[in-house]
């Protein structure tokens, strides 16, 4: 028996990827998301109709061969709107989660690395920001400045950085005491260098988990706000604003094709993102899995 040491040190990514792929629900979620993503990307090719083409002669028609999911109150094709809406809803969710996580990671690393008053101010701000529901903030800002998609992304990013910040701060505090970081400091590496070279790569897996779960939350939030008329504005379709019409009882009762498809699209997509996020968390941190 000879002790064979691998020539290349194995990265922790490989076993994590294996653990992720063993998780059946995470796998199903990933496949579903890939399909939704492809449909959204290929929206103009698969839609078959212009999502904003108004046809008052074909008003609220039930599903047929010409209109797979029927038409809405302006005679627009529901399927075409559904796939185009996917683009907006996914983009808002991804973009704002990315911005929130980037901001949170930066602030968390700074707070953990510098400590003292920087830490105190950042963490206090995190507590306050986290306790304000983004939904209410958007309601108020939309009330004063008028609703817009750009504002959604800004408020989502500004209101959701604390989760990533807390995680990164905690990891940075423990990384700061590790020998290799101490060694780097002793060799004269400044704190920004340590953050860039040692902290950011080390926290990336955990940040990815936080970010994925945040995407799910923000897709939901965009949907609610657009449903209330405070988010993505028509004629631009989003999954949420496609349901705005469903505040009318006759329509709910007799035209389920108008509200069921976008509602299911939101629910299934968010569920899939949550499955993937849960799978990632268990893969990144096997000790914490199902504790």
């Amino acid at each position, binding site marked *: 028996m000879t002790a064979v040491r691998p020539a290349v040190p194995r990265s922790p990514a490989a076993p994590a990827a294996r653990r992720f792929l063993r998780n059946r629900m995470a796998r199903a979620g990933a496949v579903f998301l890939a399909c939704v993503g492809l449909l959204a990307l290929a929206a103009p090719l698969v839609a078959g109709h212009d999502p904003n083409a108004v046809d008052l002669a074909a008003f609220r028609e039930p599903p047929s061969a010409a209109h797979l999911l029927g038409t809405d109150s302006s005679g627009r094709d529901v399927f075409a709107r559904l796939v185009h809406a996917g683009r907006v809803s996914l983009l808002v969710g991804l973009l704002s989660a990315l911005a929130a996580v980037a901001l949170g990671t930066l602030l968390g690393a700074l707070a953990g690395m510098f400590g003292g008053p920087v830490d105190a101010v950042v963490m206090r701000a995190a507590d306050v920001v986290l306790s304000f529901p983004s939904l209410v903030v958007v309601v*108020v800002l939309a009330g*004063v400045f008028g609703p817009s998609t750009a504002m959604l992304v800004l408020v989502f990013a500004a209101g959701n950085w604390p989760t990533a910040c807390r995680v990164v701060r905690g990891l940075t505090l423990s990384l700061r005491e590790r020998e290799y970081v101490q060694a780097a400091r002793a060799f004269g590496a400044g704190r920004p260098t340590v953050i860039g070279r040692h902290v950011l790569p080390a926290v990336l897996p955990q940040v990815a988990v936080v970010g994925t779960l945040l995407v799910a939350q923000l897709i939901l939030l965009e*949907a609610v706000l657009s449903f209330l008329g405070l988010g993505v504005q028509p004629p631009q379709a989003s999954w949420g604003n496609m349901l705005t019409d469903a505040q009318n*009882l006759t329509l709910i009762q007799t035209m389920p094709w108008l509200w069921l498809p976008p509602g299911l699209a939101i629910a299934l997509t968010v569920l899939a993102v949550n499955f993937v996020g849960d799978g990632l968390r268990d893969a990144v941190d096997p000790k914490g899995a199902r504790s």
Partner: protein
Amino acid sequence: MLSYLLRRLLTGAAVFLLISVGVFLLVRAAPGDPVLMMVDPEQLAAGGPAFLAAKRAELGLDQPLPVTYGIWLRDALGGDLGYSFVSRRPVAEVLGERMGPTVLLMGTALAIGLVLAVAAGTVAATRRNTAIDYATTVASLGTVSVPSFFLGIATIYLFSLKLGWTPSSGMSTPGGGGAADVSAHLVLPAAVLGLSIAGPFTRYVRAGLLAELGADYVRTAEAKGAGPARVLVRHALRNALVPLVTVVMISVPQLLAGAVALEQVFSWPGMGQLAVSSVGMLDYPVVIGFAMFVALLVLVCNLAADLLYAAADPRISLS
């Protein structure tokens, strides 16, 4: 303890002041002249610009910004949040009469959510890693994934329109009323809102209970002959529910956010519905009054969460 309380109150007040500056700037940024909205058009026509300037001076709006902020804050703290552009009534009064229905909806939803979460969390923790445990995990992921407004529409479709079991909207039947009537209207929105918070709560109950069931005192209780039910309910569950108090307090503002959407779906005459319809009618004073109310609620809930956490667990010392 006292010094901690004092410090928390001070930081709370500082945060509230900061927020009030933000809200005040929003008030000033809001389009539309509040004085024009307030004065009687006939008086304005008679008095002209001089009358308008006098009115402005009377309200202190001709002063520099920091002074107007001081006046605004003093009035706001005294409960004077200005007048609604739409109903021309004081904002505090308009918001106040909507508070009851919202508190009723949130309270019932909270009760439903907690009962569901304690039941599901207990079952999941005591039958750990069985099919029923995995099922509760998936179910709790499901409840946080389905948008509550969509679930609300779906329940209206099924229970109100197809089965005819419950009324579909409003808080009482016109001309009717009474506790039974209001309850019938309350069931669906409260159940949907309760379900939306039951998911995260279930996870806390499960994790907390698992930690307690592994503790030494549980083994001691078992060794002394306490039956499994007694150990679970009298010993482990009681301790596991302590941290939940904090989670519940922190969730109250989120619950209010959830109520905003459901009040709209179920035409429930609460503050959320008022806020959304005020946005639609460009009634800024009401929207801003709602913002001030939420800010106060958030700060009070955070403080309560900290204090309850310490009060419920003597091992925690606040310093």
